[in-house]
């Protein structure tokens, strides 16, 4: 898999029309009484993918995961795994394993018994079980903790036991519910890479549920953003971040400055948008398929805006001015909140390239904000 990624000719399966999806979710709806938790979701996940379902709490991502595991049955629609319809197959007969958010380790069993539990259900030979358990404990670097009980482990070790227990059955699909949610920040960063590494080495298809966009960006081959029971956008982390298709996605992933406006001039290869709240004309260097005079939005990421005390050479377009209201120094970057003359506050981040800046921008300075014609993303809804 790693090799394939490095190879220039590698074609991601989701761009290949001939590729057969490994998990096929077709028009799945799940209702709890009158509440629609998952609303007509269709989704294809390919073999060896690390797919992230990303969304806020109550968006239906966990319900979708539980339907893949078999704990919930879809109200309508179907789920196919490796070509097999999963309808009516109980969790204990599915080639799917899950790592729970609380880890759900068996408190009365040692680490090795926890990991062996799933294999014992398959009635494998004793030496086969212990071999696979040892291999798996080695893989997650827990061999010396085999005899310990879960309460004798730290949070990070418990997380690895939970992972080992789910992976040792060599499932076709591994489901992970907020796998890093219970870890502290430092450990989380380290574990993110371990998780990706493990996915590479085992070749198991992962589906991860998370509300943490940073986690989704670093882990995923593709992300499915969910809102109110629906999938709003599916794409690679770059696509989701740089080419959001709706205001919700642009706003949910990272931070963004959103300007509302109308088209004032357009052609096949450019568009000019009059944005009242930005107090300038925004020029975009590609055409937009929008009805003339309809309202649209331009999203510009804070790091794609330049800030300076001197006006840029061409200040006629993609340039506005305001007063610095707040500065947050983060070490690597500084965040500026600039209040435009119309009252809208724009967020700008700038990397701190030099240790001693000669002329630093400070509070109450009048500054000019400008951006490249390719920086703005036009959103129609």
């Amino acid at each position: 898999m790693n090799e394939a990624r490095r190879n220039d000719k590698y074609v991601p399966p989701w761009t290949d029309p001939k590729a057969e999806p490994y998990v096929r979710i077709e028009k799945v709806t799940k209702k709890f009484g009158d509440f629609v938790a998952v609303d007509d979701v269709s989704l294809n996940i390919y073999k060896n993918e690390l797919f992230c379902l990303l969304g806020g709490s109550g968006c239906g991502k966990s319900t979708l995961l539980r339907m893949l595991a078999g704990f919930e049955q879809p109200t309508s629609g179907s789920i196919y795994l490796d070509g097999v319809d999963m309808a009516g197959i109980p969790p204990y007969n599915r080639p799917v394993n899950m790592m729970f958010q609380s880890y759900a380790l068996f408190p009365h069993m040692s680490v090795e018994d926890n990991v062996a539990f799933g294999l014992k259900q398959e009635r494998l030979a004793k030496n086969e079980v212990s071999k696979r358990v040892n291999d798996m404990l080695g893989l997650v670097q827990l061999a010396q903790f085999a005899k310990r009980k879960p309460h004798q482990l730290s949070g990070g070790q418990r997380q690895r036991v939970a992972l080992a227990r789910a992976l040792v059955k060599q499932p076709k699909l591994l489901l992970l519910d907020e796998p890093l949610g219970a870890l502290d920040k430092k450990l989380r960063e380290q574990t993110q890479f371990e998780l990706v590494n493990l996915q590479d080495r085992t070749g198991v298809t992962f589906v991860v549920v998370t509300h943490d966009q940073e986690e989704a960006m670093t882990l995923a081959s593709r992300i499915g953003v969910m809102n109110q029971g629906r999938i709003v956008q599916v794409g690679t982390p770059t696509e989701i971040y740089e080419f959001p298709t709706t205001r919700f996605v642009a706003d949910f992933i990272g931070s963004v400055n959103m300007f509302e406006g109308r088209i004032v001039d357009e052609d096949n290869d450019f568009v000019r948008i009059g944005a009242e709240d930005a107090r300038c004309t925004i020029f975009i260097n590609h055409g937009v398929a929008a009805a003339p005079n309809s309202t649209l939005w331009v999203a510009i990421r804070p790091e794609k805006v330049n800030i300076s005390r001197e006006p840029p050479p061409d200040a006629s377009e993609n340039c506005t001015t305001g007063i610095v209201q707040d500065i947050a120094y983060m070490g690597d970057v500084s965040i500026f909140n600039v209040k435009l003359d119309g009252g809208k506050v724009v967020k700008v981040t700038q990397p701190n390239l030099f240790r001693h800046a000669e002329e630093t921008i400070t509070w109450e300075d009048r500054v000019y904000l400008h951006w490249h014609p390719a920086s703005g993303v036009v959103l129609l809804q």
Partner: protein
Amino acid sequence: MNQKRSWFLPACLIAGFAFLYVPILSLVIFSFNASKLVTVWGGFSAKWYAELLGNSQILDAAWLSVRIAAINASLAVVLGTMVALVLTRLGPFRGRALLSGMATAPLVMPEVITGLSMLLLFVSLEQWFGWPQGRGVTTIVIAHATFSLAYVAVIVQSRLTQLDESIEEAALDLGARPAKVFFVITLPIIAPALISGWLLAFTLSLDDLVIASFTSGPGSTTLPMVIFSKVRLGVSPEINALATILIAIVAIAVVVAGYFMKRQESMRQRDIQRAIAANQ
């Protein structure tokens, strides 16, 4: 304020101790009384203990009570756990509130009512089906189990509510069928609750007089019934000796259980400390 507290709290302490332990203490002391008169101290003697060992009526009743209590406790644990499982794991169902209410009703129901209703039930059952034939050990056990299962259900239910349901789901997910999940995962985890439920049911049955009086028959006189009927004719020092033995057994059991629980807890704490230290 400070001065007031200086005598008030110690007085509370002394009053508390006095109310709790003076009756027990006087009973223990008088069990070693040489005199046959309960209220007159006639010197130290252990003769009532010797006499007790020769009294087959009391010993038989004690043995019967222990047997009934043990069978009752086992039955109550099984039934109570079933009730608790249905209430915590079945989700909303028709009649849930009714079951929940009825399961805990014996906790607040006057024992006389429970005993009387049990007696009426057994009599009509015998008339219609010919079972149970007369009243005896079986009917006492059934009656005791009916009310002590409520206590077990409450204890087990609170344990099951605390239990993370995803642990059971994880076992299902790893390929264990629901029945196996219950016996291999749920049961061992809730075992402490089952044990305390069993002990509570055992004690409840052992010292029950009212319900046993209603549901017992000839040849099934339990220990509380023997004690009660003896005391009505005047307190004999033998009963004091018997009570002292019972108190000793209970006290030892409590101390031993407390010691083991404390040791287990401190071991757990030490393990957690060690795990945290090892991780840093």
